[in-house]
């Protein structure tokens, strides 16, 4: 038993060493992203690297602004909370600029315009937003897709922790439709031939980079962003990531 005890003590010390090291300051700014939203930010599992539209965009911007940074891959809820608390210096993660979010964080200028799209099974009769009335619609809880679908009167909205689960439910017939961001929808539609994209919601949303309130980085980033847009970076990235 003594051996087991000392092994455990060693494990605890070892573990705490490793994990306390994670918190050390390397001088680079920490940029949070929830790498589970292809093609904007996701993990290239073979190379174990975070990749995507947002990833490339921020890399370009940081280069122009002369900022050293590192990405931190965190879950969505801690990401938002972390930005507002200042745990992270910035976050780029398909974050829609919303008024109620502005009370907790600052945003850069918008860098992308996104729409919500309806996805159904290939043989579905649903053709537009008005056809969703009385139907079962899946969304990812807390996203703008959730907001949009719920705003339509008479729609039966089911929230899922992850959009992937909503698509599973759609394919198995438990849902009539799924509403989510256009790029993400394209990923699923191109993979599964029994799904199709139907129509987009008329309202648009804009993605922005989030910062803790009062952050000094906002202006620098905005300047670099404007430069990047002028250089055609956005168009290039759209070609690379969004045109399949």
């Amino acid at each position: 038993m003594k051996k087991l005890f000392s092994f455990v003590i060693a494990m605890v010390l070892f573990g705490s060493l490793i994990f306390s090291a994670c918190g050390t300051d390397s001088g680079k700014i920490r940029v949070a992203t929830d790498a589970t939203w292809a093609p904007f930010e996701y993990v290239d599992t073979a190379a174990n690297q975070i990749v995507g539209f947002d990833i490339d965009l921020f890399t370009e911007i940081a280069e122009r602004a002369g900022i050293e940074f590192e990405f931190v891959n965190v879950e969505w809820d801690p990401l938002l909370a972390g930005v507002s608390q200042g745990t992270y210096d910035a976050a780029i993660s398909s974050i829609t600029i919303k008024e109620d979010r502005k009370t907790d964080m600052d945003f850069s200028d918008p860098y992308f315009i996104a729409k919500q799209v309806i996805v159904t099974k290939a043989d579905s009769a649903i053709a537009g937003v008005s056809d969703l009335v009385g139907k079962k619609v899946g969304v990812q809880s807390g996203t703008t897709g959730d907001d949009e679908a719920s705003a339509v009167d008479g729609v039966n909205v089911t929230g899922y922790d992850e959009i992937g689960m909503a698509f599973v439910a759609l394919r198995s017939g438990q849902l009539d439709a799924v509403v989510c961001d256009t790029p993400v929808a394209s990923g699923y539609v191109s993979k599964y031939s029994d799904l199709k994209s139907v129509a987009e919601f008329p309202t648009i949303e804009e993605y922005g980079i989030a910062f803790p309130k009062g952050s000094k980085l906002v202006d620098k980033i905005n300047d670099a962003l404007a430069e990047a847009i002028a250089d055609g970076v956005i168009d290039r990235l759209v070609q690379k990531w969004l045109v399949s």
Partner: protein
Amino acid sequence: MEKYKKDAPNRELSFVTGGEVNLRQDAWWWLVVVVAAVIVLLVMLQPVPFKDIVVFAKSGILVTIVVTVVSYFLMLILGLAGGLGRLSKNKLFFGISSLYVEVVRGIPLLVQLIGWYFASPVIIQKLGLWLGIEALIQYRVNPIVTAIVAITVCYGAYMSEIVRSGISSVPRGQMEAARSLGMSYFQAMRYVVLPQAFRVILPPMGNEFIALLKDSSLVSVVAVADLTRKGREFMAAHFNPIETWLMVALLYLIMTLIAARVVSYIEKRSKFER
């Protein structure tokens, strides 16, 4: 002092030792083998995506194991203190430990995790502002440490009750005999009561480990890159929820099955130990 082998072991079990016990052991190990075989088959027959999932999730498995093991042993210590407190005649110790147990048991672990992760930095920072301590103002939450603390505190409350009932099951006469020989309360606990209580506590202790292993998946919600989080990342990159979650479930299953075998082994060994 020679180790006895031929003498009859603890008399309560002498009718159990023998072929019967071994048979039950074998059946359980078969289950482990079956699950392992399924995993291996999936990886070999359909490496895309199953092998990729396993390879990618490796670091998550390590994190899950470390979080589980570290939290477990810390909560044992907390549980021992809490259990002794719940049995204490001292009103302060009794009060604090009872309050701790009742409050913590009344809140779901997920809520506690979220509370620790999101609320504690705010509280600490405000405290720092109020007291003017720079270090506190600059406090940034460390996800893994916070997760381990949350799990330890939560499971410690349940462990306290397990310890308390285990100690209560030891006849009062044991403590009396030890004290009448002149032993202090702590000596009596350490050498006489706790070793006997341990045998009663051991099975539920094992259950708690397995429960903890599964509950560790909750830490993915608070920014810890465990197996569940890795599964989520893989699935988002490849749009294949069913295959991903199947493999993740199998990986959790094999960990809990192995843990259950280890617990069972320790239980058996402790019955014949000194």
